[in-house]
């Protein structure tokens, strides 16, 4: 009998088959990932999660007898009251008896996607270029830094300077005979031997001395294991840097579900990106109509408000929150604003003033996303007929003036990425920001 320990065998034997399954059901899984984005909060995007697809599409058919119809016999245990010849009412189909096991789980196939698989499918849908996908999907490497010396380590980490210093001080302290001294003695002996006359006594004495020194030299080695010093490295977290992401959104009646969905994808992507750059990312949701309030994510995306539109209220609210909780000294500030572009004309001046005067100086990056309906004939043509919105025109002035500000119009999910390219192009800045 053999006992074999297979636990250390490489795992993931089913990985190939799993990938093949995902490839086969790709269109469905992608749709499922997109749908599940609705149920996920922005912060949870990166986690593994359950998705479900229609079972029918991945069904493996076989010739089998139909589950109902025809004459059948059942043998059952646990008879209590029945006698031969009794009649039992037929259970409503699919409810009881054998049908009870074909409940609601039948038409849906649910499974868990790992974090990587989920991200892959999500990012692919946004039509990110390969490089960007890779950056987002691979986990960050923790840095190492030198942290003093250790008495053990790998040969490559041997610190020669430090080791020699130890060796030297030990040799001095223990009085290891120096080679110059040995040389001197040998010369003396040689001289004495060369001299005529009987110096046997002296020579013997010197020889004895030489022998003693040699013994001592052997005992006190040039480099002893005790001298060895290795450079010690320890994994070090990247310098603590934190970012806060302000999501501003117009929630007045004119924003449709589709627009909110676009905004959510954008926020999710931005959050993902920030998480790569910063150790700690917080998200603040501010929604506004003609007044603004800070809300949780659920309310932010799914509750409806009515009222006019005053963008400046949201900016004020944001500045308020910033002042209270997120000082620009300690936090990297990112602002993402989504709107369909409506604003009261009277409010424009104040909006611009707030944006240029207070927000832009404090923020790392401000993105304004103007979301539109999926099929907007005016926008699609992009011709002169497309009337720029109030907010668009107002912000237009800022964009030219300041590089931190990016604005884009988005009608479709695939257009979200171009907005992002700006951000990646600016990655250098983001990295500088975190080191600061």
């Amino acid at each position, binding site marked *: 009998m053999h*006992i074999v320990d297979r636990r250390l065998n490489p795992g993931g034997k089913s990985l190939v088959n799993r990938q093949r*399954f995902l490839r086969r059901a790709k269109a469905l899984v992608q749709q499922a990932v997109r749908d599940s984005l609705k149920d996920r909060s922005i912060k949870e995007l990166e986690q593994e999660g359950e998705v479900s697809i229609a079972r029918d599409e991945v069904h493996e058919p*076989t*010739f*089998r007898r*139909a589950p109902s119809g025809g004459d059948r016999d059942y043998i059952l245990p646990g008879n*209590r009251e029945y006698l*031969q010849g009794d*009649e039992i009412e037929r259970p409503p189909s699919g409810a009881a008896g054998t049908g009870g096991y074909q409940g609601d789980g039948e038409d849906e196939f649910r499974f868990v996607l790992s974090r990587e698989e989920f991200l892959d499918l999500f990012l692919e849908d946004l039509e990110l270029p390969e490089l960007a996908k890779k950056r987002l999907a691979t986990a960050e490497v923790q840095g190492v830094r030198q942290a003093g010396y250790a008495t053990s380590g790998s040969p490559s980490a041997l610190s020669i300077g430090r080791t020699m210093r130890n060796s030297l001080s030990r040799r001095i302290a223990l009085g290891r005979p120096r080679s110059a001294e040995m040389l001197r003695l040998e010369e003396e002996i040689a001289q004495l031997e060369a001299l005529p006359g009987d110096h046997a006594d002296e020579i013997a004495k010197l020889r004895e001395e030489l022998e003693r020194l040699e013994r001592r030299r052997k005992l006190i080695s040039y480099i002893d294991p005790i001298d060895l010093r290795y450079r010690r490295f320890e994994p070090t977290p990247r310098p603590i840097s934190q970012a806060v992401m302000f999501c501003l959104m117009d929630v007045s009646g004119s924003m449709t579900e589709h627009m909110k969905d676009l905004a959510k994808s954008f926020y999710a992507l931005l959050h993902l990106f920030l998480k790569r750059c910063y150790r700690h990312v917080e998200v603040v949701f501010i929604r506004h109509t003609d007044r603004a309030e800070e809300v949780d994510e659920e309310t932010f995306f799914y509750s409806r408000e009515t009222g006019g539109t005053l963008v400046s209220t949201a900016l004020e609210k944001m500045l308020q929150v910033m002042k209270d909780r997120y000082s620009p000294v300690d936090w990297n500030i990112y602002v993402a604003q989504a709107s369909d572009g409506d604003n009261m004309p009277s409010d424009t001046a104040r909006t611009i003033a707030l944006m240029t005067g207070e927000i832009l100086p404090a923020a790392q990056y401000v993105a304004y996303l103007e979301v539109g309906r999926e099929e907007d004939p005016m926008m699609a043509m992009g011709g002169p007929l497309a009337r720029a919105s109030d907010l668009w025109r107002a912000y237009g002035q800022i964009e030219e003036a300041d590089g931190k500000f990016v604005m884009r119009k988005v009608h479709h999910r695939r257009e979200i990425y171009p907005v992002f390219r700006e951000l990646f192009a600016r990655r250098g800045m983001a990295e500088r920001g975190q080191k600061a």
Partner: protein
Amino acid sequence: MTTTLADKPLYEGSDWTFDTIQRIYDTVERVAAEELGLDTYPNQIEVITAEQMLDAYSATGMPLLYNHWSFGKQFLVNEMLYRKGQRGLAYELVINSDPCINYIMEENSATMQTLVIAHAAFGHNHFFKNNYLFQQWTDAEGILDYLEFAKRYIASCEERHGQLQVERLLDACHALSHQGVHRYPRASARDLKAELARENQRHAQREREYNDLWRTLPKRRAKKAEPASERALALNLPQENILYFLEKSAPRLAPWQREILRITRVLAQYFYPQGQTKVMNEGAACYVHYRIMTALHERGHITEGAFLEFLTSHTNVVSQPMFDSGRYGGLNPYWVGYNMMQDIARVCTAPTEEDRAWFPDIAGGGDVEGTLKHIWANYRDESFISQFLSPRLMRSWRMFKVADREKDEALRVDAIHDERGYREIRRALARQYDVSWQEPDIQIVDVDLAGDRKLVLEHYVTNGVQLAEKDAVRVVQHLADLWGYEVTLNEVDNDSRSALREHKARPRESGPRLADG
């Protein structure tokens, strides 16, 4: 029997080491030999993690199998169930091979390891080695080599012909794999090891015979269509092994496609006995582990606590919810099998008058082990139940038979556990375990190779139970893709011979392909 108490139990607590496993195995082996005299393949015990167990699950329990998306799907299903805690993982998995490979989970306690060694390494192992179905249809020695060959062959096909092509073909093969077994022994048993050599030989022969001149011969005038009977004779029709027929006679398959058909067919055949002996196999293994664990306890090899732990999991395994308990999900094969084995042991040693009347051959024979081993070797579920289910068990299970007739409004209780009902219940239960009754009876009845090459199949409908329609349509499509020409499947009533339904399909372009592109 003189039992000397062991000085010291094999283990204390639930922790184990490889040394413990070795000692447990040795003791169990000794006890098994003394108590039961089992005849087993040599064992190989492999300790695996939960994740590896999931891997093994999704590959139908085989240690290595070719790649296909359906195994990935299986993996995801199992993973989901496991994570949600809806289903625990098996404590062990055993492969019918020589040496017999037993997978045991690392998180089992020492008692569970003892139990699974007794259950799998001795119970199942003995059954695999001795049951006539396994002897007839499987080659324990060659299966691992064959799997290795299959995996390599299919991988090389993927390289040569593209993953998609192979995947489509495998989809079609899997759909037909239940119709890919020989149900009755015909030629001599297949020697799996020789398969590879034979395939190479076949290739060489074909290459030798190849001559481009054949192409240039003038075509003969088409002959008159032969009458069906002669054709049937020539093609060995009717044929119920559809994959076999396609492998040998499908006109448009490439050699590598035939070989893959053959691989899926051989694997289906390998698993065929397992489906027919579920009750007996588990029953035998449960009976063996119960006897061994009890003996270990009596001899002081395991502590009282360990024995109680064993009893708890044993009871869980062989439990059966009653039909109206709300948890009923069919008969538990462990429960049926284990109780029948215990009952046979009782009939051998302490029969009642009734037992003597029902089982004159074994009642009071006294040789429990001999009787059981004879049964394990020579029966399958259907014959086992139809001969050994005793009235006493039917009474204690309070079994009854419900007839569901299509034309009647209500269900009818046909028989209950009384003098008039025993034989009826036993017959009906045995029939439930009869694969030839459970699987639809589908046969290839006609094909006109000289004419339009239409393949005609018939499904003989018994008791009015037709094929599940959606599935049937898809499988017929797969079949048409493999055959390369039109295929018709007629559902025919077995008694009246009247046609009930017809499924037709024409091959899609470029051979077997995905369900919906």
